[in-house]
């Protein structure tokens, strides 16, 4: 056990001390704070723009006050002003930057309006104006039809519409929309983690092989112990990093105090955190990590140069990417049969079964069965991987393909 801890510590510490690891951690944590405070930051930049003036070409002359009233009602800070300038002059004003936008409004059977601004990118302003024009139009139509204000209000009263599902495993619409955000974020995290950390392992193993230090290592410690100590070390590193991200993200949104943060928490379902969802997330993260880490160590042990790692890792990457497709598409339809089936396939299960656990109220035996299948696979893969690893680390040659697995096993074989 002694040497296990030494390798474990070494794998953890050398990676944790690398510049790339520290920088990645800091940047991601900083990104959380930036994201959380984005509304504040944007506001502080756009302060000087309040009271934007909207020039209105209005032939009738009585539309501008109505427009202004509507804009005020919708809490918009746009000032509608009648203008005597021609359109050409206004366009030139926009180009020169003295005018931000103008509106041409005409009365007919219905109102017709044209909103002109420098770019079409600005979503906010045009939208407010459109709403205001629409409101005037509605009021006018109501008047023409002889409806009172109350009647007009009734006309636009939305129907009460609720969704309910008969299936037991399905959650209510309200629960689903809350779960969806959280599950989405957590699947994304697991997805990134099962790509990032197993890759780290494969690189480490290939590095030790290409620098030929491997031969010294495995003459000191059994390759199997070496492999698992390394996987455990990097895994712990992954958990620590994820925890740092989690804590940073939590505090970032808690402290920012912006409306968006609150909205974010409720939309993401964080306000009613389901502990079980998080526990399953951690569990599936660990299982997914171990599954792919053993595979990565096996593949890493086959190459002689670090340059060849990516090539050999490709099939594994495909597995992860396919499982992410299933998982992300399954967010919209978690009860689809292909989702159910693939949640029992070991390499897809970490993402897909977590999706089902998060989105549906499925009986406990389903995730447990899937976990058991994964544990079994990890066991088999660990046993198999250890055999390949034992021979693979002694193998140096130009050919790097999956065919080498057979060669590695016979090299590491007892007899």
């Amino acid at each position, binding site marked *: 056990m002694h040497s296990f801890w030494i390798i474990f510590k070494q794998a953890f510490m050398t990676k944790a001390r690398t510049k790339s690891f520290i920088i990645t951690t800091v940047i991601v944590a900083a990104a959380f704070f930036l994201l959380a405070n984005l509304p504040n930051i944007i506001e502080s930049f756009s302060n000087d723009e309040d009271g934007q003036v909207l020039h209105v070409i209005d032939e009738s002359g009585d539309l501008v006050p109505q427009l202004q009233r509507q804009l005020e009602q919708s809490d918009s800070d746009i000032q509608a002003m009648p203008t005597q300038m021609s359109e050409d002059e206004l366009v030139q004003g926009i180009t020169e930057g003295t005018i931000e936008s103008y509106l041409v409004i005409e009365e007919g059977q219905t109102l017709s309006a044209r909103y002109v601004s420098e770019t079409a990118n600005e979503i906010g302003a045009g939208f407010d104006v459109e709403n205001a024009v629409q409101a005037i139009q509605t009021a006018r139509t109501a008047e023409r039809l002889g409806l009172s204000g109350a009647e007009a209000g009734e006309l636009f009263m939305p129907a009460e519409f609720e969704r309910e599902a008969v299936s037991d495993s399905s959650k209510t619409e309200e629960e689903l929309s809350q779960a969806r955000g959280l599950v989405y974020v957590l699947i994304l995290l697991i997805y990134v983690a099962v790509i990032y950390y197993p890759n780290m392992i494969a690189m480490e193993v290939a590095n030790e092989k290409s*620098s030929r230090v491997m031969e010294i290592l495995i003459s000191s410690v059994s390759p199997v112990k070496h492999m698992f100590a390394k996987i455990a070390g990097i895994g712990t590193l992954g958990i620590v990093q994820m925890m740092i991200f989690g804590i940073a993200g939590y505090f970032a949104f808690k402290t920012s105090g912006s409306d968006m943060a609150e909205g974010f928490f409720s939309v993401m379902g964080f306000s009613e955190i389901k502990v079980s969802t998080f526990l399953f997330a951690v569990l599936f993260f660990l299982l997914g990590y171990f599954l792919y880490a053993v595979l990565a160590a096996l593949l890493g042990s086959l190459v002689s140069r670090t340059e060849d790692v990516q090539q050999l890792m490709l099939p594994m990457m495909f597995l992860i990417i396919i499982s992410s497709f299933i998982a992300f598409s399954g967010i919209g339809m978690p009860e689809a049969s292909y989702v159910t089936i693939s949640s029992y396939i070991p390499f897809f299960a970490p993402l897909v079964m977590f999706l089902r656990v998060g989105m549906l109220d499925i009986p406990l035996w389903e995730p447990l069965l899937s976990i058991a299948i994964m544990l079994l696979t990890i066991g088999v893969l660990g046993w198999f991987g250890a055999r390949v690893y034992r021979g693979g680390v002694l193998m140096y040659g130009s050919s790097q393909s999956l065919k080498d697995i057979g060669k590695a096993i016979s090299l590491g*074989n007892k007899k």
Partner: protein
Amino acid sequence: MALSVEHATKKFGDFTAVDNLSLSVEEGQMHGFLGANGAGKTTTFRMILGLLDPTQGQVTWNGRPITYESSPFIGYLPEERGLYPKMKVEDQLIYLAQLRKMSKEDAKKETAAWLERFEVPHYADKKVEELSKGNQQKIQLIASLVHKPSLIILDEPFSGLDPVNVGMLKSAIMDVQQQGATIVFSSHRMDHVEELCDDMSILDHGKVVVGGSIREVKRNFGKQNVRIKMDRDLTSLSQLPGVEKYTGTIDGAVLQITDESTADLILTESMKLGQLRHFSIEEPSLEEIFIAKVGKAYA
């Protein structure tokens, strides 16, 4: 019998890398391993270390098979040098010693002592990749000796070093042997084997073609060399009966003979040719034995 390899055979598919190899090294002895590239030296070492299991036969150390339990007593310097390029020298040596179950404190002390001995204490905080090849070699040797092993396997310990460093490493290895360690090493340089080893083996195509104590090997070879130095044309000597081989040198010639009486004849004949500056009967060099046995020059 400290280290004993009994009828070890290692096959990779149809290819036999080591064929029925037997070898025994007494405790505290130094054993030299010679062989052309691909002769099976590294495979033999890997079998001794337990990295590869022999297809047939067995390897024992003090009567017991070598497993990872024995790891603290074994030191290994692989032919392909291997260290972490980006790790500091001291951290690296301590880490490797710890893997061999040495305590951190002892490892630290020993590492410092060895760096001091090899006159590179200022490298302790440097990364290995910053060091010259020769200095990396020193670090590599320290890594195989720092945990005070009793069985040391050195695969080409002196290749790529300048004479000063070879001397330094050689004396370190001899000191370790003096302290009781059993050492097996391979070398490209016959003179190193001649100088350091008690026993030796020459490997060819996985078989030991010559083995035993160096003195015996030379005696059993049954040939000697007569070296003559004089400023005359000596080619006529090659015609004398009993002279098996004639090799001209810059200042004379070397003649290979099997019978010592032939030496007397050569002496009288050469004195007739003129002023003789040097005449000696020499033991055959390992080089010659190697060429005679393996049939080609060494690497």
